[in-house]
């Protein structure tokens, strides 16, 4: 029983890590319809900038804040690039984000370095024992903040004027424009929100996984899987997708073999795309042909 619960907790920890990255995908997809493959790199920049700002002697809170600002500026830069090439097809724009990711990775290896780095856990090294299984404080913080972010996003999109404007833009750009909504600002805001979520993720993950210039590749991939499984465009879906992925991985590693763990992500992804192409919580937009 404690073994079962141990695997379960491990899965939840990893699941929320994937979810935190996955949510960022959904925000940008919602507004622009493109998948931002630089999302993992945003997470990396959040973590790496915090590490180096703290090394410069800044207090942790200031460093975290600046790291979030830096990542947001990079997010705005990506939006400007996409805006410049707005007449291109969505596929070209997705490739643009891929290229942007490679540039960020290269820059990070030069501006920062190629070494591994870590941050101290926010509340120390402590652990909590539940039914004989343990979970770290840091993992609990990640879970709490991930839930907070998703509920916050939900309320923001439903209850605030700006949020509603964003939903309007994603539903019908032309109609939104006619209603007097500044589309460019709204789209840029989407990229900022996504970058902020990613950099918070990077700051929270670093004490657990440690970080280096390449860490975004794996995080981006798993976060993308989480977002797809949950149905792109739905933040709750990204959390469900991340949890499903994390828990499955943990159980496969625990009960079958750790060799097959990574295969699970892709089998689940293929299965979802085959049987429920819209994802678990997504509703495929009906397209008139």
């Amino acid at each position, binding site marked *: 029983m404690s073994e079962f619960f141990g695997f379960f907790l491990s*899965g939840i920890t990893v699941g929320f890590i994937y979810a935190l990255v996955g949510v960022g995908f959904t925000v940008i997809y919602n507004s622009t319809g493109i998948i931002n493959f630089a999302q993992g790199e945003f997470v990396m920049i959040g973590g790496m900038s915090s590490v180096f700002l703290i090394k410069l002697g800044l207090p942790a809170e200031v460093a975290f804040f600046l790291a979030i600002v830096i990542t947001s500026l990079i997010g705005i830069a990506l939006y400007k690039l996409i805006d410049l090439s707005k007449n291109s097809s969505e596929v070209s724009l997705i490739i643009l984000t891929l290229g942007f990711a490679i540039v960020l990775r290269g820059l990070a290896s030069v501006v920062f370095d190629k070494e*591994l780095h870590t941050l101290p856990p926010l509340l120390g090294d402590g652990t909590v024992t539940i039914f004989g299984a343990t979970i770290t404080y840091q993992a609990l913080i990640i879970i709490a903040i991930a839930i907070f972010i998703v509920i916050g996003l939900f309320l923001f999109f439903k209850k605030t004027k700006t949020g509603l404007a964003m939903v309007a833009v994603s539903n019908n750009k032309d109609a939104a424009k006619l209603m007097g909504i500044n589309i460019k600002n709204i789209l840029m805001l989407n990229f900022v929100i996504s970058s902020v979520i990613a950099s918070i993720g990077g700051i929270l*993950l670093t004490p657990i996984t440690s970080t*280096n210039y390449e860490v975004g590749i794996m995080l981006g991939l798993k976060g993308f899987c989480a977002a797809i499984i949950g149905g792109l465009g739905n933040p709750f879906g990204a959390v469900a997708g991340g949890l499903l992925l994390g828990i499955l991985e943990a*159980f496969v590693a625990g009960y079958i073999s*750790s060799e097959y763990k990574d295969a699970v992500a892709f089998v689940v992804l293929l299965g979802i795309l085959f049987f429920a192409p819209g994802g678990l919580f997504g509703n495929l937009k009906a397209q008139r042909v």
Partner: protein
Amino acid sequence: MLKKLLIKVFALLLFSSMVVANAGTIKIGAIVASTGPASFLGDPELKTLEYYVKQINNNGGVNGDKIKLIAYDTGASPKKAVTFVKRLINQDKVVAIIGPSTTGETMAIIKFVQRAKIPLLSMAGAVAIIKPVKKYVFKIVATDRMACQKVMQDLNKRGLKNLALISGSGGFGKSMRKQCKDVAKDYHINIVADETYGKKDSDMTSQLLKIKNNSKVQAVLNPGFGQGPAIVTKNYKQLDIKHPLYQSHGVASKKFIEIAGAAAEGVRVVAPPVVVADKLPADFPNKKIAVKYKNDFEKAYHTQVASFGGHAYDALFAIVEAIKAQNSTNPQKIRDGIENLKNFQGVDGIVNMSKKDHLGLDTKTGMIMLEIHNGDWTIVK
């Protein structure tokens, strides 16, 4: 028009005079992965080569000849290694080649150096490079097999019989896992659990829980490098597993202690001696050279010494010694000289080459066992 022609002639003359001046140089090739996934190996290796070639030349060179280092970066790609080895042999006409940094690249270029009869000093880990012995291929790098043997010896000393493996699925972890399973029976050790993890995984508690709940396990060994072993160490502490935990030479640097933090307390790490050069007992055979290398490197590059750079030091000076001993820069003679190295003081240990042994290291000086206490290394006697 005439002026242009004159300039060209002059340039040509100047160039040819430079070629003449180059007659007294020894061209040594280097194939290193100074960027890419193995840059943690190649970067300190290249820095070491550049530093010592400069130093040797400033001190008058080898037998009066200056060394010219021709280094290429492969980014750890075996394909590029093949391209560069051909270029080194056919165009640059080097007399000896140092590298590559990784096993895959080395295996890919062996047949070219064998055919061209140019001595190669690999800086990669696997035993397969020098076993079976190939006439022109050497390496002065402790193998992962030796690291396994060192761990097994330590287990024997502690009277522990049942070992669990949790290995990274990258090339390093894979190769060491295989070697450890291979040598275990020589030391009467049973491998009772054999888990793996992806090199970019963020949580290994599932695998460790399985090991924890396996009542046979008495000790755990984690072959791997990068962030994986640090996460394993943290999860190990989180699950409060009481068995001794061993880490490989892949993480034998201060960086590992920094990243694993408090969880690293009490972890044993098998490591090349240079990592703790200052702390080695005074009678340790290659202490002097290890301390010298560590101090040189840290002074020149202002970063903590990485054990991997020592491979480059040993390869370079093995060639230098061979040239001195044979008083010739003929590749064939250099090869003979390297094969006859006896009691050569290397950073990686005392080297005794022979016709049958192109490694020349033993587990006594090649690897030592360390334990982490209060964020620092202590040597296990």
